[in-house]
């Protein structure tokens, strides 16, 4: 599928909407008046210097972090203190972490089946079939009976992606998915993510992999000090940055 075809998957349906979102850690104002709309099928890359709030931003979208002001609406559901809302949103959003966070006491297969069985109440057989399908898709089905500790970092991260996909989410959040990997393993994980993007998954990805951003992203957001400073389509963003802070950042990472 070409980029142009992938573009057609983007429809007008709003999947995630943030309105004037503010968050503080104690006195520290980590997110300042964030406004963002993510439509179905969009792939958004979020980058910015360390501590700028980019991870916090996507962690607010499935309420791993609580925001104090503003509204976050995911698939039409407003995230508030209502546990039912949080539950529903979490079933619809998959998340991939920098440190993989696989469950080390369970096999790869059990890692993938856990949520379908215990959250979606699927019969064990069906859950196994789903898990097998996604493990094949990330090309790791042959390791299904191993424990995470026996796999390489890249393999673990691919399992983590498969584990999220087993819940059949409509949005995927990636929090620096390749930052903890050895250089030779980054590509295998990015390939899986590119695949996912081509199939039209709505994705929000915190990453500094600029090649990846250029390949799949519709939009790149640059954050600094808790604000979205600049927002552009990838080529324009990298070749023709507008603000000084963006220019400085790009000069440091490229």
């Amino acid at each position, binding site marked *: 599928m070409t980029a142009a075809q992938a573009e057609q998957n983007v429809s007008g349906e709003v999947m995630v909407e943030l309105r004037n979102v503010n968050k503080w850690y104690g006195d520290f104002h980590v997110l300042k008046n964030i406004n963002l709309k993510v439509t179905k099928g969009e792939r958004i890359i979020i980058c910015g210097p360390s501590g700028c709030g980019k991870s916090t931003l996507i962690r607010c979208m499935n309420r791993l972090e609580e925001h104090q002001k503003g509204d976050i609406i995911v698939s039409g559901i407003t995230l508030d203190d209502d546990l039912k809302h949080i539950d529903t949103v*979490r079933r619809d959003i998959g998340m991939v*972490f920098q440190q993989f*966070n*696989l*469950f080390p*006491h369970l096999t790869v297969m059990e890692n993938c089946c*856990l949520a379908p069985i215990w959250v979606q109440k699927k019969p064990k057989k069906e859950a196994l079939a789903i898990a097998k399908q996604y493990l094949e898709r990330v090309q790791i089905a042959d390791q299904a009976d191993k424990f*995470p500790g*026996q796999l390489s970092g890249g393999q673990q991260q691919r399992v983590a992606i498969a584990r999220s996909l087993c*819940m059949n989410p409509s949005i995927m959040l990636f929090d620096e998915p390749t930052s903890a990997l050895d250089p030779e393993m980054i590509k295998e994980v990015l390939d899986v993510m590119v695949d996912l993007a081509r199939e039209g998954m709505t994705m929000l990805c915190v990453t500094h992999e600029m090649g990846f951003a250029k390949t799949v992203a519709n939009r790149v957001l640059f954050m600094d000090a808790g604000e979205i400073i600049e927002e552009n389509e990838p080529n324009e963003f990298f070749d023709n940055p507008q603000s000084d802070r963006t220019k400085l950042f790009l000069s440091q990472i490229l």
Partner: protein
Amino acid sequence: MTVHVTSPSPSLPPPSSSVGVVGWLRKNLFSSVVNSIFTLAGLYLLYTLVPPAVNWALFQADWIGTTRDACTSDGACWVFVGVRIKQFLFGFYPPSEYWRVVTAFSLIGLLVAWLLIDRTPKKSLVGAFTIFCYPVIAYFLFYGGAFGLPVVETYKWGGLMLTLILATTGMFFSFPIGIVLALGRRSSMPIAKSISVVFIEFWRGVPLITVLFMSSVMLPMFIPENMQIDKLLRAMIGIIFFQSAYMAEVVRGGLQAIPRGQNEAAEALGLSYWKSTGLIVLPQALKLVIPGIVNTFIALFKDTTLVLIIGLFDLLAVVQAAFADPKWLGFSVEGYVFVASVYWVSCFSMSRYSQHLEKKLHTGHAR
């Protein structure tokens, strides 16, 4: 100058002086002059202590007989233990009802073996039976009062039987209570948290002897005559609460060692608090603290001997009481050795099983 390596170097075997028996001896026993001296001194010490002890306990010991006249040799007089063994095992339980105790212990032995041995089917069913049905069965077997079984009052219970009852009920209840307290102490809910903290700190702050003494002497003074609770039950509750507090801190240590990311991953998948605790956090935390849990169990097992100060006749107390028998004066060493070996065998088995369990549950996740 550049170095060109065309093929990988072959792996060579280590030098012969570092492997095999000679290598082992050299490395572990005779690595320096000082170590060699210590090794020789240690060997001499073993030579002077072990053979006499073994001679006394086994080769020169008297095993058969019914009175002290049977003990003619220099060694141990196990006849004393043999004659008294029923009392050591059952206390003052009526001999006609011994079969009830034997049945109850055989049943739990069978159930526990079924659960602990790796390749047995239907573990969850047997586990549920052990947890929910066995305590009821055991209660009626030990105490009676139903199904035509005559009541045996708890003051007649004693010996090893009492020790095992106190220890197993202690472990059975203190483990889950400890887990709940540990979770409570880490909870973000202020009431659950403060209740747990107060409970743990209170019970951990008082000696077990005080707890037992309070439960047996002080408590009855505050409770009206017709509402008195059985003395054994009071001691049991004291032991359970006391050990729960320790267990809670052991489990909390394990909970704290689990990275936050585990919880976050579980939450992100939509698992509720109880599911992520039960399926993700606790299995890992408990596995980490198996040594601590078994340590607490062993301490609990041995601490049951303290009940002798409130007049319950556990194994140690029964054996000590037998020393006072005028027909058998002077055999306290045999008595104590017998008690010590019963405790040692039990505690050592627990320790070995825990090591087996640690190995079995190891999934190579250490990074």
